[in-house]
């Protein structure tokens, strides 16, 4: 396949970026999207040009490193991670636009690489449970209703890729934050810190400069893990409950 890619090139955090076109003559439809970029980078290196900086690690859709915006859509046209997207999704002769996540809280480091440290700080603010370490506890000591276990598991599959923020017209991190609130809040181990968790995570989310949710739902359309929109209502219920407690805030 012949493909033209237009890629956001930006030398560093403060540099001004721009879209730069590259033509690729020999793209196999079996290539993954990142392999296509690897091929381009090999060529650029041979030509003595600076290769395109992009993030990736597992390349199997579980680490959340590889997100870029493809043709204006986070992770591109298929509901999956960029590393799991294949060139057969595109047609011979296509022009493909590739840009970094855009969000005030995700500054561009270089080209397609952004700093998603804000997500780590939201998790550090409350996305954990306190449990004794040592020998594993007896699993059957803590029964969990099936429906809660399923829902918590679904929310727990978030890989922290940031597509929800990149897709949200408000740059809001509600889906990401709410997924963790739901995951831990539905399980017995998450109860002791349930109120402090939602208060602290929401405060950190704001401090990082994320926007506020207008319930448009673009996040769920972009999420490669299918995190459901109802987690946002769950966060809202937990926060209202925590704020209603006297002395909580």
């Amino acid at each position, binding site marked *: 396949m012949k493909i033209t890619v237009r890629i956001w090139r930006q030398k560093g955090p403060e540099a001004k970026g721009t879209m730069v076109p590259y033509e690729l003559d020999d793209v196999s439809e079996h290539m993954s999207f990142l392999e296509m970029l690897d091929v381009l980078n090999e060529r650029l290196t041979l030509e003595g040009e600076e290769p395109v900086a992009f993030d990736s690690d597992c390349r199997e859709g579980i680490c959340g490193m590889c997100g870029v915006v493809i043709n204006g859509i986070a992770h591109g046209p298929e509901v999956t991670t960029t590393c799991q997207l294949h060139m057969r999704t595109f047609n011979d002769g296509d022009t493909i636009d590739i840009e970094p996540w855009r969000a005030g809280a995700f500054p561009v480091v270089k080209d397609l690489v952004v700093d998603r440290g804000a997500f780590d700080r939201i998790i*550090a603010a409350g996305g954990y449970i306190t449990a004794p370490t040592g020998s594993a506890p007896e699993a059957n000591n803590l029964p969990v209703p099936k429906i809660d276990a399923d829902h918590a598991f679904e929310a727990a599959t978030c890989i922290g890729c940031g597509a929800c923020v990149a897709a949200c017209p408000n740059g809001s991190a509600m889906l990401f934050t709410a997924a963790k609130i739901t995951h831990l809040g539905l399980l017995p181990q998450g109860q002791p810190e349930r109120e402090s968790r939602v208060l602290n995570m929401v405060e950190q989310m704001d401090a990082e400069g994320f*926007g506020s949710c207008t319930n448009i739902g673009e996040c769920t359309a972009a999420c490669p893990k299918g995190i459901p929109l109802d987690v946002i209502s769950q966060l809202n219920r937990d926060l209202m409950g925590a704020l209603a407690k006297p002395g909580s805030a």
Partner: protein
Amino acid sequence: MASTQLTKKRVPASRSTVAMKYAMAVSGLIMVGYLILHMYGNLKVFGGQEAFDAYAHHLRTFGEPMLPYEGLLWIVRVALLASVLVHAWAAITLWRRNKAAAGYSGGKRYHSSKGATGVQRSYASFTLRWGGVIILVFIVYHLLHLTANVISPGGASDSPYQRTVNGFEIWWVVLSYTIAVLAVGLHLWHGIWSALTTLGQNRSKTRLASRLTPLAWFVSAVITIGFLLPPWAILLGITG
């Protein structure tokens, strides 16, 4: 760069953007409740001058002598004014914040011209902010016209019925009113769903799968049609 340090300045969750959305949702729903009552009142125009004016009079004497003349009306007016102020304040504060949060570069967020209308966004969700501004401007004009009667297209009158009919016999009055009502309809098409979700009521995986979405559509359609019937009936000479 130590990404685990929580050094950023934090404000209490009670003053967070999420709490601001609660204020916005509650104030919005108060206004929706008012609109439904208001629409019921307007439809009395089909009962003729006596029914309409009697209803308007009744609203002013309601609760007498426990409440003074126009007592109920003033309670409602104060509640509505507070709602509009809270709602508009939250809308403008979050609007500015969200623009920065979306990380524009050179006037654009994404330079690709594809995908600009999103994947599953509704048209209504694009119109909320400027639509809200249109509604605000209209509310001022509307109060000057039919409440205070400072502007009186078609002629002033002591009878609320006569004021209404005089106004709506003029095409541009009906036109401006229609635009405003459609703006309200679009606003609520997304707004009612959004408010209920913000208040924790959505239990579905997507916006379109939620029962709240058709509920929002239904209520906004009823409000839109209910408000458009009287002016068009008057303009077309069906009533009045």
